[in-house]
């Protein structure tokens, strides 16, 4: 997996003051940035904008470290909490079953992701690698449902989950999320870019479809699978609406629901709310840092959540 050319840092003249560039790089950018001044200006602009994205998180950490909720007001006047209290994070776990919420979110998101990648990659193989009568018609049906807005599915899926007896159960949150027309589409597009000569050669050597799928296509489609996995995981980890309507027990609450409940019970204790939300933000951040290049690639492939 190489970095896509489009997002590589653009090469240009060195920035160090007082030194002339050894060779002038061709200017391919829309803004004439070869001059030192404009280079510096753009950089300063990026830093200032960057600060507006970083400072709210700094403030969040500071509040999460504030000992007493009434000191939050002091914090906003002086900028710093009067006393640092790292115990707030532990307090969140004492007040509510935060560990259970964490487990539920990770459990549901992981299973939904694993199942979705399996079902979608198999379906994508059927759509991209096997010629069968009626294939294009079925695929068109898949594509057609992509145009239907999500709100249309909310009510009937609730009724279906209710009818299947999966209401207020892990299965009700995992099973409907295990299939995705969109994921199938994404992986089909990805598998079409894999040269067909590879599996033709394999089939001449006597390999069956399952071997071609598992030993040739899947390894080559790895970047696509990872992209789908990231999106499926993030989507299910942040998912709010489905857990909200499909669960009612406290021990089935996912993080978003747990946070909402925590906020309505302990709302005035902003320090604890910020500690809890900070912890809830950690898994996506870790995921992003580890898999950043795949994620960016995925978005540029057109994998934008609609």
């Amino acid at each position: 997996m190489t970095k896509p050319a489009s997002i590589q840092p653009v090469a240009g003249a060195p920035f160090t003051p007082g030194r002339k560039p050894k060779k002038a790089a061709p200017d391919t950018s829309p803004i004439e940035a070869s001059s030192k001044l404009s280079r510096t200006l753009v950089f300063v602009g990026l830093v200032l904008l960057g600060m507006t994205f970083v400072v709210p998180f700094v403030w969040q950490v500071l509040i999460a470290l504030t000992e007493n909720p009434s000191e939050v007001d002091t914090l906003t006047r002086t900028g710093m909490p009067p006393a640092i209290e790292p115990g707030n994070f532990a307090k969140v776990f004492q007040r509510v079953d935060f560990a259970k919420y964490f487990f539920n979110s990770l459990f549901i998101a992981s299973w939904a992701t694993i199942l979705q990648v399996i079902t979608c990659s198999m379906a994508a193989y059927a759509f991209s690698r096997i010629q069968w009568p009626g294939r294009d018609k079925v695929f068109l049906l898949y594509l057609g449902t992509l145009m239907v807005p999500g709100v249309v599915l909310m009510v009937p899926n609730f009724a279906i989950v209710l009818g299947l007896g999966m209401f207020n159960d892990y299965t009700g949150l995992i099973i409907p999320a295990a299939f995705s027309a969109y994921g199938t589409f994404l992986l089909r597009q990805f598998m079409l870019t894999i040269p067909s000569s590879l599996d033709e050669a394999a089939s001449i050597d006597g390999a069956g479809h399952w071997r071609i799928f598992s030993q040739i296509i899947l390894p080559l489609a790895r970047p696509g699978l990872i992209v789908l996995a990231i999106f499926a995981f993030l989507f299910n980890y942040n998912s709010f609406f489905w857990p909200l309507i499909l669960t009612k027990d406290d021990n089935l609450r996912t993080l978003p629901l747990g946070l909402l409940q925590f906020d309505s019970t302990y709302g005035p204790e902003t320090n604890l709310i910020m500690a809890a939300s900070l912890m809830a933000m950690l898994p996506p951040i870790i995921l992003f840092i580890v898999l950043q290049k795949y994620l960016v690639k995925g978005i540029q492939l057109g994998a934008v959540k609609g």
Partner: protein
Amino acid sequence: MIGTPKKRLGIAMLFLLPNLIGFLMFTLGPVLFSIGMSFTDWALTKHNPYSDESIRFVGIQNYERLLVGDESHLFWDYFWNTVILMIGIPIGIAGSLGLAIMLHAKAGPAKPSGRLKGALIAVVVGAIACGAVWLVMSPHAAEAGVKSTEIGLADMDQQKVDALRASFAVLITAVLTGVVAIGLAVGQVFFRTIFYLPTLLAGVAMFLLWKALYRPQGGMINAVLQPFLDRLEGIVFATPMMLWYVLGIAIVILGLAYFGLSMARGVRNLSSGDAGPAMFGARVILTILLVVTLVGSGFVATQLPLIGLFPTEKPAPYSQSRAQSVLEELPDQFPALGDRAHVDSALIAYLAPRLDEQALRTLLEDASQLHDGTVPEETREAWMSLGSGVMSEIIVLFDKAVSDEERAEALDRLKIDPLVRPALQELDGASLREAAARRVLVWVDVEPLAAALQTLVPEADAKELNARLLDNAIYRRGLSAGDGLNAPAWLIDAAWAKTALIVMGVWLGVGGGNMLLYLAGLSNIAPELYEAAAIDGASGWQRFIHVTWPQLAPTTFFIVIMSTIGGLQGGFEQALVMTEGKADTIVLTYYLYNLAFTDEFQLGLASAVAWIMFAIIFAMTAFNFRYGSRMTND
């Protein structure tokens, strides 16, 4: 290809089946099912295993109710809320394009050695700056033991306040140093990452962060905004009022004139064939943005003098002795408070330090009349919601207070008046909770409350009561009563809540997928186009408008379509988490949720909402295709 078509179909089905079953069950099936549902009166409260009633087919009755019938006022209110919240979409798209252009432009050093050297220099300079900031701002030894005179910091040592301020300044300097150093060392990828971070984390946790940021008191945004407003206020009062009027009107006229000229030029270019529809579209969008800014700021300028002309009267300050006399009369004067007295005394205890004598008296009278049962139901409701808002705050702190010490500490935190503390100290969380469990609304609209309470007092006092309630509400909203420019109460104030959500939406989405799509689009533009433009002597702006913008038109087209589809369905989580649907923030998806999953579980009616939304989305996409493809083909 292996095998006969029939055999291939068999194999393909084996691969496809797991997905196909799910697809039919949870995607295609529901879509068809939903259409059918929308023509029925299905409601879970009426049609369930415990009732014999069967679901009836009602034809287009659901659609009729929503669009023109008894639900239509709600539907259209929420529709317009959704549309107004979508104002953030074009702003966000413009921002994404701006960020992408900045990221794509060359910034900072390019060679690894230069980058590393720059980062090292930044770290050294930053460390020195941190030290310098600390030296300049560090507390004076002379201030040891001196209490701060600043509002809100009165119980702290001035030295401690200074130390906190200095360490905050050092922290911010360090963060800035970090951004500069990592930005130099890593370059574009780093900035792209921090711009993308909010999109990645968008969810309940992020909305809770913004809810805290927007808090009128103790929130970061108003803490930053208020000093600027105070300064602006100073400037306004220091200059002749007339100047602001003239300036404001001049800016408005200038904006309108520019709009007219620009449009005339655009039309001329279009008709003479100098520029195509894409150029014209770009011109329209940019001009509108500019003119809205100009006219808006001009309008604000004309409003500024009003603050000076009509200062609001401050309520008489609270004094303990006067409050004491009121409170001593309490048991004799208001026997009707009866067994609910403890709830009201808790409320009064909370309000007492914050109100003057007359306001307190009014509140007490209202409270007693409430328990006589002589007031209309709506007044009662309004009073209850005011009470329970305060109550919920008390209960939260009291709930966990088991020992006397803990209870005393909770009372400290609430800044409860010492006079009424003994009464409260005897209560426990459970009894308070029980009393207020039925309604826990954190916020209340003042106007309906004032309107309701006006029926309780003589005509002449109605205006005064109204004003006092407003003052009281302003206090509860965390704003100090009085004159001058005050930062908005954001999420609590119906006039500002939508703006707050729009600002947050732009912050959340500006560095997200759209920015990355624009980045990809920018790097796909052939450099020859820019070279040709440069040879023709085009300025930077001309190159943007003649090369970049038309070349990015397909990307923009895609982004606009996806964003409108998303925008029309969005807004539910924000409203539920941040405003609980108050302050005019209910969107169509929220309405659907309310219909289908609360109270009556009207699945049929909710399905009809979904299909009307689908029709709107379909119409908007079709319009975009029709209009947008003309722009793309330019």
